[in-house]
């Protein structure tokens, strides 16, 4: 489920992307002031999806505990999750393949005649 290479980013690349995100304001989530790019430069590539997800997590769940070790660990987990999702998506499934989810109807205080209540409302 993903190679070691796919699961980690070199530290230098990691730091470069963090810096890139800081410059473009992606971490803050703000719509960045359009970057001024020289006409003969290729536009900067966006960070890879794991980095974008990490940036979103950091914004939604801020903490002063996000050091490099922690962020690398979370990033690694994100990559594993993405790989796992891709593995699941490769399984042939038809529209008729429903989720194995639990759902049952409820009726509160007035069961059908002769029947027991099917459930209780949440507390």
């Amino acid at each position, binding site marked *: 489920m993903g190679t070691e290479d796919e699961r980690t980013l070199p530290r230098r690349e990691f730091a470069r992307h963090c810096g890139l995100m800081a410059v473009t304001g992606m971490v803050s989530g703000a719509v960045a002031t359009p970057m001024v790019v020289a006409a003969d430069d290729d536009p900067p590539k966006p960070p890879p999806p794991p980095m974008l997800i990490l940036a979103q997590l950091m914004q939604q*769940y801020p903490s002063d505990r996000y050091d490099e070790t922690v962020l690398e660990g979370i990033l690694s987990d994100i990559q594993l999750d993405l790989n*796992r999702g891709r593995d699941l998506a490769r399984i042939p499934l038809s529209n008729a393949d429903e989720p194995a989810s639990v759902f049952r109807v409820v009726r509160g205080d007035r069961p059908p005649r002769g029947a027991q209540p099917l459930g209780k409302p949440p507390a």
Partner: protein
Amino acid sequence: MPTAADAFLTIEDWGQRLRKKAVTARELAEFYLARLERLGGDYNAVVTITRERALAQADAADRDFAAGRDRGPLQGIPFGAKDLLATRGLPTTWGAAPFKDRVIDDEATVLERLQAAGAVLVAKLSMIELAGGFGYRQANASFTGPGRNGWNRERWAGGSSSGPGSAVAAGLVPFAIGSETSGSIMTPAGYNGLSGLRPTYGRVSRAGAMALSWTLDKIGPMCRTARDCGLVLHAIAGADPRDPTCLDEPYAYPSTQAPPPRWRIATLKGALERVQPEVRANFVAALQVLEPVAEITEIELPNHPYSAVVGTIISCEMAAAFEEFIKSGQVWELTALEDQWGGHSTLAIPAKDYINALRVRGKIQWALDALFDRFDVICAPTLSTVAGPVDRDFREWSQGFASTSLGVASNAAGLPGLTVMNGLGADGLPTAMQFVGRALEENTLLQLGELYQSKTDWQTRHPDVA
């Protein structure tokens, strides 16, 4: 009064002594309370000793005996409960430092049923913080310290039901209640040489138990024998309006069903390839014990991404369960450093991945169920190795914990499993084998477990704990 040699008696043994008046319920409770107080800390097995409640319950059991009221085989029997089961008026910590003093105003249905059966709660037992969902990689992942094995305190007790595993193994309680999302009954029972039963999903109410993964969590007994597991399951199984996933299926033990004329046992190809030599040898020897009464066939499990399905479901459900815990910053108080950040990525898994996991889960359920048209049980080593050092990263010694996908596959499908000790391995530590059966076929597993235990004596072995 009981002596140290009596500490390893079974529920049945104690039941006989209680009814012969060789011991009172109060004496029995005092005996195990003393052992818990004296020895529990050596194994980091205890969170809270419930002395006052225990003596009140024991006295009630003695009054019932005196009045001729017999509630059944658990009456007067002390037990411990994994500390994710709520106990009104007493701390319920979930193994996590942020909750070490927290009292939940609720009583788990399982504990209510055990009380109604006359059992005596003597302790809340330690566990891996938040049942291991945050990705722990070493034994020191609980505010009570690393769970130490009942056979050797320098070895891990297994998780996440660490305290139940070592407490029963060391003779601190006759039985305990553990829980399993994926491996948390079978692993500590296996490492500690116990009989552990993971019931069918929905067999036992989860009301009042911490939810790690609503559609994967199961609660079950950890005992000295398969028979004791059946006695406990009889007391705790059954529908519960507080738990909408709890099945309205009758359960009774002992069973009246006749055993198969000849057991049809499936073993798994490759199950013995990545295990310690003693694990291999003991599994082969165990099959030889069963061969006179069984047809044993080697098969392969259907090809499905069991780990991806279970991993995705646990991740997504725990993200919902613990988002606030992470958001509040309490997560940074967890004991294991990797647990402090290990849950963060789950907050970003797309919904479609969860839905796809559930879709594949449905296919897994039917594929495994079809196997049980041909076989009564599927059998494999419970664990690849004996318990490893308590101070080492799991990746250094565990060989992935399991040598097959049977555990994760059977959890994906909600199937019952029984682990029993089948020998001693490296460094004199227990090895074990597991039986997995069709949904709701706990009694099939227990019958086979009892048969195996009638022909061997591993379930009578125990560490030398004074």
